[in-house]
């Protein structure tokens, strides 16, 4: 509770005019990921500038903005993948109230799953092994337990009926849309708290995209989702909250309905109505 109020105070100082409604909505929810004054760099280039953004539990937060605005980098800061590619960051990201730098990156990433733009199943592993790859890393060996989790996870992503007879086939012999759902199943099999999605549907056909969007709605019940997308209709359809990033800065953050119907800033309105970006 205390934490939440803190966050809202932070938002207040940055964007005082927006938060009154947010407070009413979010005050009783707790915040899973709390981003404070985050700045991210590649070498000396600053790609994110002082971002403040609370992510409430069991909500879908969409991050929109033109290409190169730092959406993906923002996502990668949260599970410390940014440092894998040689980037650095300053500021604070609190995950369950603890600074992410105080976590072991390996453990942090177990609790914050990620799904990428292009489906990337492991081609040398079967569908079954793809799903349990994360569990195996964590030392789960019990075959029965693994089978249960595989079934659960694949059902959750609505892939079970399509692949239940071919669990031992390679993970790349299925369609792109199925591959992406397999990757989501792989991410949720380790029971993370948060799932980060980096344009998960951009490489897929419309039908697969629709399936993924449906799936997001289901997943919201158990997980908190941060999704990066350049497709504004998608953001409007699936998310509860939307953040608009431009040139590494957080321009506006509010309820999705508010952003898409009555944005506070002209810049946001221009972007949403397609006048730039």
């Amino acid at each position: 509770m205390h934490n939440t109020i803190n966050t809202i105070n932070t938002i207040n100082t940055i964007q005082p005019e927006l938060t009154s409604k947010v407070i009413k909505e979010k005050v009783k929810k707790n915040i899973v990921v709390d981003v404070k004054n985050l700045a991210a760099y590649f070498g000396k280039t600053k790609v994110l500038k002082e971002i403040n953004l609370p992510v409430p539990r069991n909500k879908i937060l969409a991050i929109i903005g033109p290409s190169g605005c730092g959406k993906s980098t923002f996502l990668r800061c949260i599970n410390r993948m940014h440092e894998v590619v040689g980037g650095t960051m300053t500021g604070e990201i609190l995950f369950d109230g603890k600074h992410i730098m105080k976590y072991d990156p390996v453990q942090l990433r177990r609790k914050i799953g990620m799904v990428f733009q292009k489906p990337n199943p492991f081609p040398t592993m079967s569908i079954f092994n793809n799903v349990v790859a994360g569990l195996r890393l964590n030392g789960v060996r019990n075959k029965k337990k693994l089978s249960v989790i595989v079934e659960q996870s694949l059902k959750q992503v609505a892939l079970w009926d399509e692949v239940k007879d071919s669990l031992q086939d390679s993970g790349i012999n299925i369609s792109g849309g199925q591959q992406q759902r397999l990757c989501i199943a792989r991410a949720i099999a380790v029971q993370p708290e948060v799932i980060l999605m980096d344009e998960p549907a951009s490489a897929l056909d419309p039908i697969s995209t629709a399936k993924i969007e449906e799936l997001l709605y289901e997943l919201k019940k158990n997980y908190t989702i941060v999704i990066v997308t350049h497709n504004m209709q998608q953001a409007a359809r699936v998310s509860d909250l939307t953040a608009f990033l431009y040139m590494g800065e957080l321009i506006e953050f509010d309820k999705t309905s508010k952003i898409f119907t009555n944005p506070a800033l002209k810049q946001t309105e221009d972007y949403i109505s397609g006048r730039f970006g």
Partner: protein
Amino acid sequence: MEFNLLRRKVNNYVILSLTFIAAAITVLPLLFIFYYTISKGITYLSLDFFINMPKPVGEVGGGMANAIVGTLILIGIGSAIGLPVGIMTGIYLADFGRNKLGKVVGFLTDVLSGIPSIVVGVVAYTLVVIPMRHFSAFAGGIALAILMIPTITRTTEEMIKLVPDSFREAGLALGIPKWKTSVNIVLRSAWKGIATGILLGLARVAGETAPLLFTALGNRFWSTKIFQPIASLTVYIYDYAKSPFSEWNQQAWTASLVLIILISLISLLFKFLTRSKYKSR
């Protein structure tokens, strides 16, 4: 969970340090070989080594003028035969090679590059030495040519394929015949890459010994005649290394040093060419 994580992290660090050790071990023999070649070879490295003939057993000093010239002549004969064949075949594979002949020749080029050099020596022996009834620089040159053809063919082909089609189209649109487009535009923009391929091929054959043992044979005297046996640095190193005379052993080290310097010069040229190619782009 905690214990599992600890185990995984320990595993991680142990194996990662093993790869570092592997890298160190790999570099070690190289440093050793360089150290010995330089420290032992430098004893006799002087102008004398380049301008004098080998001395008979028991006499101190002498050089390998004939072998140095012989090696250059052998590379020269090899290039005179191998370069045109390799380059033209490469052009064929790149420009006209999408048919059966092209595929077969491409495959055979790979076959050729896998043949051990000693086998190539045997072939050059049966092809050239037996009909001519004596060992010769020419036979050695043929063997070296066969060895350099695959390298040169493949690099030529790849370099030509790297030239964007728009270059050709531009030439053709100007009404230039295809062959002139190929020669003047495509080859001209690919020549640096092809030159590096040539150098790579030369560096490869410069150090060859096995195919020369029973083709060029070796010669203790000064000879530049193409149809006579000829001396080469590598065969000298082999003979002198096996000999019981420490004087000759010493000279083998010096010859190795000279050979490595020769090859390094070739590969330095190669590095230089590849570097300037990327800069211009």
